[in-house]
């Protein structure tokens, strides 16, 4: 009896050690996730022509948004940030994202690049670092207007080769 219990105990200890030793669930690359969902319209939003508390929101998460823009008129969507956040903005149309504002202060937008996993579907993505909590606004512009597909996600799991 003592010998059987000792074997069981060693087995349990070994299994526990293996579990703790780094069998962490893999985080999906948000770029891959974006490619998987680019054909989905997601939440429909109509951009506002002003930046205020009523500006339609796009939510940082795993779901895409389809934003309707007026022709040749800057449109705005709002992003609520709770704290220091590294995020990725994927856009289904190039040269539509024009600016980023924190409140009324314009923030510099980094240079975009295609989503390498599906560059034709997602020609632009931005690596955004939100350092402060608060309301941010994306400025969007399209000469002909219409819909633009956006997905704003956490940057976790992105970018290492």
């Amino acid at each position, binding site marked *: 009896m003592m010998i059987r219990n000792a074997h069981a105990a060693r087995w349990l200890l070994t299994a526990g050690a293996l579990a703790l030793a780094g069998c962490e669930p893999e985080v999906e690359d948000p770029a891959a996730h974006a490619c998987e969902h680019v054909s989905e319209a997601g939440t429909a939003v109509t951009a506002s022509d002003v930046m205020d508390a009523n500006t339609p929101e796009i939510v940082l998460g795993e779901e895409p948004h389809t934003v309707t823009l007026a022709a040749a008129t800057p449109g705005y969507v709002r992003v609520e940030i709770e704290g220091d956040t590294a995020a990725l903005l994927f856009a289904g149309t190039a040269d539509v994202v024009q600016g980023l504002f924190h409140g009324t202060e314009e923030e510099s937008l980094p240079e975009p690049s295609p989503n390498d996993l599906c560059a034709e579907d997602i020609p632009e993505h931005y690596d955004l670092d939100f350092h402060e909590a608060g309301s941010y606004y994306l400025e969007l512009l399209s*000469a*002909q207007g219409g819909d633009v597909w956006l997905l704003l996600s956490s940057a976790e799991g992105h970018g290492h080769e």
Partner: protein
Amino acid sequence: MSPHPLRLVALVAALSAGCTFTPGGGFGTLGEATFAAAFEPGARDLGDGGALTDLLYRVHLDSATLSAGDLVLAELSGGGGASFDPAAPPPGYTLCHGGHCHSEDGALVDYADIEAELAGGAASFVPVLTFPLSGDLDLLAGGSVALDPVGDGSLLPAAEVSKATLDVSRIRLAGSVSGGPEGSGIGEIGVPLAVDLEVSGQVGAGLDLPIARDEDPIIDLSVRLVVDGTVFDGIDFAPLSASGEVILDALEEEAAAALAAAVLASGLEIDLERSR
């Protein structure tokens, strides 16, 4: 002589015959190579050669040409083979993926340029393939041209081609500009626009093109220079139109410098196909 030594002599002769290619060449062959240049406004497209700027100006182009020199595919030589792990970017850079890293000022920098920077003055880009493109590139005409390399494209040397550059010496645009910010723009009736800038710059792109014995030897190449609709962004045309037209012909002027920089930032799109 017994059969075995004879077979050995034959084998050595055959191996020797297979190794008599020209030293430095014969690791790859250039197949079909084409080049195209275009103005593609994309999401800023107003139609008929027109583009909407971020300040809501409407720029219509009747003509758009770039004077180009050589298109060069080059490899980094010297510097002891400086490289870095994209998972651990060097100081001044963050988040590396897809062949580029983000610099601290938000710009995208190709791996090849970062490696050259790490190597300091000891490294330089050496041409592997050079395609003369003398003459004007019409950005509105469409179509593509065949590329003919300098030298023998059928005997490419072993190389790690990591960069493509195109020399640009002149930017010429003609058309009109109207619109702008409400209350401070040019108005609906446009004014002529004339751009004639002597520049000394390059458009470029990083690429990953190993030419080696263990790679498919035939290389088909398609290169596109695309100037997009954001090229006029940030330029406030109204103050420049006091004379009834907008003329940008001196790089000392802020608007001219901004336009030249935007054109040279266009980059090159490169498609590669390899075969046996």
